[in-house]
């Protein structure tokens, strides 16, 4: 049920790494971090999903919201290395084509 969120800065982007489960109870924290970094408006934002084991639709909705805010601000927004189960959830919501998905961090 726990979710750890790390952030780090690279030359070109902010990277947010989520570790654990993104669910109804933990996704508000992820949302907070994503929206705060996007509000800086200086760099693209990547969300590293490689260590997310479970993501429910609140997690998907959080990513959609992040993408929307980034698009409005004309900032880049991408996902990296989603696990198979996360990919399945994105596909089902027909969002796998909506996001820029990178294979490695």
């Amino acid at each position, binding site marked *: 049920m726990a979710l750890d969120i790390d952030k780090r800065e690279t030359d070109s982007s902010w990277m947010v790494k989520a570790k654990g489960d993104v*669910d*109804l*109870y933990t*996704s*508000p924290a992820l*949302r907070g971090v994503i929206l705060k970094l996007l509000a800086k408006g200086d760099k693209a934002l990547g969300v590293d999903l490689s260590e997310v084991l479970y993501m*429910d*639709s*609140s997690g*998907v*909705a*959080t990513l*959609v*919201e992040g993408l929307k805010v980034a698009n409005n601000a004309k900032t880049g927004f991408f996902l990296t290395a989603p696990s198979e189960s996360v990919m*399945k959830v994105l596909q*089902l*919501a*027909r969002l796998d084509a909506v996001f820029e998905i990178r294979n490695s961090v």
Partner: protein
Amino acid sequence: MANVNDYVIEVRDLVVKYGERTVLDGINFRVPRGQTFVILGGSGCGKSTLLRNIVGLMRPHSGRIFINGQDFTAMNDRGRIAVRKKMGVCFQGSALFNSMTVGDNVALPLREHTKLEESTIEIMTKIKLELVGLGGFEDFMPAELSGGMKKRAGLARAMAMDPEIICYDEPSAGLDPIVAAGLDALIRKMQHTFNLTSIVVTHEMSSVELIADTVCMLKDGRIVEMGDMGRLRASSHPFVQQFLDRRPDEEGEGGSEYLRSLTGGD
């Protein structure tokens, strides 16, 4: 074979009474994670009552129900509410609130039970409606939907909280066969995609063939046969054979059902 912890639902020696009358008597079964368990039987045999006990809307006279290995029947109200958040229920009819839009119906459990932001809830609602083939219908009122669409909206609402378990009471009742088949396909898709453990109450044989991993046949509050469809077909129980052949009931159960529908009582 699934290990013990992977039985999401286990019902042990369940007895349910309404007043003095026993309607379920000695029910035992368990459902592995990700499987669809179908409860089949004639009208009045106790199918809805069994479902109400599984989802914790009723407390049994005796026996136990375990959800994820925890004794649901022994929990206090707080524990039961926590467990129930993991379960979605599609009631007979669609049980949508007619005074609310379809979107508000779907969003309701999220608004009541989570601290998610409204913006997140709105996106989730759209995703759920998309999932059941009702993308773009969030601002419609239930009265503007067809019977099949209402059932789909009810399913979207049952899925609102991303449940582990979903229970359907007669999902295709009252629908024409094509719409009913579409709903069966949707039930199957939900199960596969989310590894949902599903309980489906029905008396439609055509549905059973399509969706069931295990079928449990109830008669007069007892299980008369249980297993996959092959086992049911091979059953020597006359009631099972009669049901599979869809022969009219010699005892005239259909007649009493008709009477009930005319008089509105039991």
